[in-house]
């Protein structure tokens, strides 16, 4: 299938969302630092949100603040936005909880690097 530059430009939000998803996953995957992992998770989350919001977009339409009896095509789909609003709050909840866990782990192990923690644990196991 010949892919033209227009295709990229037209679907840039979807492509961006996918790329961000993979970058987030890469961040979670390769960094032993727990804070970095949490940031990676946040990047993944925002990428999904971006994807969601892009679904609802209609070019040339207005924001979903309407007058009575407005035609449907002139306003973007409000449902994805409403869902993402919920999603963002959910994300902050998870992030806050993960961060508090990180604080606790730092207190317990003295480090927030996963590989160091693994070493400490295996050393403890062998004792």
């Amino acid at each position, binding site marked *: 299938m010949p892919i033209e530059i227009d295709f990229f430009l037209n679907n840039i*939000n979807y492509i961006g969302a996918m790329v961000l998803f*993979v970058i987030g996953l890469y961040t979670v995957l390769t960094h032993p630092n727990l804070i970095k992992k949490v940031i990676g998770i946040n990047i993944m989350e925002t990428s999904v949100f971006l994807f969601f919001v892009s679904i*609802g977009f*209609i070019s040339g339409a207005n924001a979903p603040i309407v007058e009575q009896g407005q035609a449907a095509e002139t306003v973007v*789909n*409000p*449902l994805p936005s409403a869902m993402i609003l919920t999603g963002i*709050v959910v994300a902050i909840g998870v992030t*806050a909880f993960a961060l508090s866990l990180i604080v606790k782990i730092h207190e317990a192990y003295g480090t927030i690097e996963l590989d160091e923690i693994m070493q400490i644990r295996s050393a403890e196991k062998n004792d």
Partner: protein
Amino acid sequence: MTKIFTFLMLGGLLFVLLTSITELPTFGESYAPAHNEISNHYIEQGPEDTNSPNLIGAIITDYRAFDTLGEATVLFTAIAAVVAILGVVHHKQDKGDNHE
């Protein structure tokens, strides 16, 4: 070695995801399947149903208010969890208040 595998894996994933975009409904089209009778209902009936100009507000607090209750619960849960894990605040604070 692990790095190569990681890149291969993520590259493959990215490739699959990007390939799939070729088949997605094009971005920004008004006839995409997501813009169906449901969203039309929100836009056209929304003002009458809820009397609220901000449709997003109408959706989160009326049409899908139960989601928002869940969302509020998520926040509550997060706080309960954080307090449960870090939580020295509760008792110290109570004591402090009693002294005053």
